[in-house]
């Protein structure tokens, strides 16, 4: 966060992706074994989160959804406080009231997270309107899934942002699953982004497993929004490698499709590229893993030792 696109080295992007991956893996394992309700992981989609978020500036705002850990971590959120939230502890970003599904972090500009699929789309134009009425040059990045693109509010949101010239970067993370339904059962055609044309909105589909490509596309889109004041729809085409939530046996997933996408794992792809370029070594990877592991140890220690909220919290924060 706070950096402009040019300043981040690919190794930093890799470290962020690995942080996200390990966070999700450990969270899932911990929750499942502890009998907690599961979380929706973004495993396989780290390049989309890191690529887009790394292209945002410090004043830009983010709206996200139930599959938000990647966006939060890429934005610099504290894994300990995310995890505390997931575990319903009072030290979580939302005091344990959100739980895993709608974590927002106002201080980082990660606002108005909704687990109502499409909720983020309904809120985004209003955030864009605030920014534009106040004359700020912030861009509002709104992450949503291919499933959300089936909701009517996708249509309403795109159309309003177009008609009112709102600076919204719509980011459709097309991970090809909508909970237990494959996108092929929910729409004709493979992509959502071309629909933008119908609203007079510019768009691009990018390989969502190539973090550098995502970052470049997002940077172009953000620049375009700052230049025109108009919305843009970026689709990151990727794949959900784990289940809809944890635990999920994925018995309904075509194993060969899953395997083909695992073969294009975003972390493996970047690692291989960097090794090939000669800027990363096996020791470098090990060092990243070690740093990540240390951060996560601290995060898990913090979250698990944090208290649950007091019962009086039942009725606080309802009214301002």
């Amino acid at each position, binding site marked *: 966060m706070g950096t402009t696109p040019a300043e981040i080295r690919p190794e930093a992007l890799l470290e962020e992706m690995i942080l996200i991956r390990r966070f999700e893996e450990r969270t899932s394992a911990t929750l499942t074994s502890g009998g907690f309700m599961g979380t929706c992981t973004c495993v396989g989609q780290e390049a989309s989160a890191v690529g887009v978020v790394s292209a945002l500036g410090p004043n830009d705002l983010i709206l996200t959804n139930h599959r938000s850990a990647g966006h939060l971590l890429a934005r610099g959120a504290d894994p300990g406080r995310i995890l505390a939230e997931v575990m319903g502890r009072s030290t979580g970003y939302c005091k344990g009231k959100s739980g895993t599904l709608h974590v927002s972090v106002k201080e980082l500009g990660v606002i108005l997270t909704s687990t109502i699929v499409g909720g983020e789309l*309904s809120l985004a134009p209003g955030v864009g309107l605030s920014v534009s009425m106040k004359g700020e040059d912030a861009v509002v990045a709104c992450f949503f899934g291919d499933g959300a693109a089936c909701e009517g509010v996708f249509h*309403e949101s795109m159309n309003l942002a177009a008609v009112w010239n709102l600076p919204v970067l719509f980011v459709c993370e097309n991970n090809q699953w909508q909970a237990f339904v494959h996108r092929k059962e929910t729409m004709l055609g493979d992509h959502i982004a071309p629909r933008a044309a119908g609203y007079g909105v510019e768009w691009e589909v990018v390989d969502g497993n190539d973090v550098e490509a995502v970052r470049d596309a997002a940077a172009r889109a953000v620049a375009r929004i700052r230049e025109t004041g108009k919305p843009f729809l970026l689709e990151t085409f990727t794949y959900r490698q784990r289940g809809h939530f944890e635990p999920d046996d994925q018995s309904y997933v075509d194993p060969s499709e899953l395997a083909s996408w695992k073969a294009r794992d975003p972390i493996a792809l970047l690692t291989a590229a960097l090794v090939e370029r000669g800027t990363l070594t096996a020791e470098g990877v090990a060092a990243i893993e070690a740093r990540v592991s240390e951060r996560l140890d601290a995060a898990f220690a913090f979250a698990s030792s944090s208290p649950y909220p007091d019962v009086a919290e039942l009725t606080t924060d*309802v009214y*301002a």
Partner: protein
Amino acid sequence: MKTINAHDAIGEALAEEMRRDSTVLAFGEGIATKRKALVDEFGRRRVRNTPLAEGIIAGTAAGAAATGLRPVVDLLFAPFMAFSMEEIVNSAGKLRFISGGQFSFPLVAMAMTGAGWSVGAQHNHNLEAWFVHSPGLKVVMPSTPADFKGLLKAAIRDDNPVVFFSDIGLLYVPGEVPDGDHVVPIGKAATRRAGTDVTLVSYGKTVPSCLKAADALASDGISAEVIDLRSLKPWDEEAVLASVRKTGRLVVVHEASRTAGFGAEVAATVAEKAFDALRAPVVRLAGPDAPPAASYPLEQAFVPQPDLIALSARQLVGRAARVSSPAPVLVAAGA
């Protein structure tokens, strides 16, 4: 004091609040066409027509409210709010709590409600109970031009989402509105008429009906107290309980369908908290549990009328304080 109707009182409230606070803005399907004076004064950036899409209108209000604006949105007729329940209830109503208090949602969602224009059940449906039952929202429903103005100003200043219902039967009825910065606090009822024998509690267009009934009762020597709730959430429990502790009898009157309507909340609260004061059953007079018809005579018959209110009150007052016979069964027209 000047005499204006509720429609104009709304216009005054909007203009005054937009003048006072540059973060207030208004949008909706046709508001910039219908409230030209506002456009003339505040421009098309602050008074906007929208695409025909209630969901995104409400959602945009929520997003804008959470990030520093104070939007007022016009959702036209109450049943159209069915397209914006997600945004009003799940976002505006809950995201403050869900976020642990990080955001607030100072917005006003306006809608017209009730009988009077023979437009049928997809335009005429009183839904206030839905919003009262939804956490994080406030709900107001004024009955006089002064309250339309004063409550709208209070709603715009409130840091919470407020659903503002305009009973269409009252929109063009003139009434006196105080000069100056007239703000009516949300949550305070108004005792429109003091009385000692029976309490009539209502809101919206059935308030004038209760007043007519009270007139009729007075000529029978029955003294009815008429309370106009004005706000349904929060509602003025204390005012109602105090009145019933005095009169011992309660008739709750509203146009919305009786079953699980707001009157049930009032009746249940009184039966719980003023039980010992009650000298007779609590009675609800309300619309039947049916969609309202467009046909004019049916549309009128849907709404509890002064005669029925007076009759019910008379029966309650005439009743022995505590007898063992079953309570009189009093139903609204057609129920």
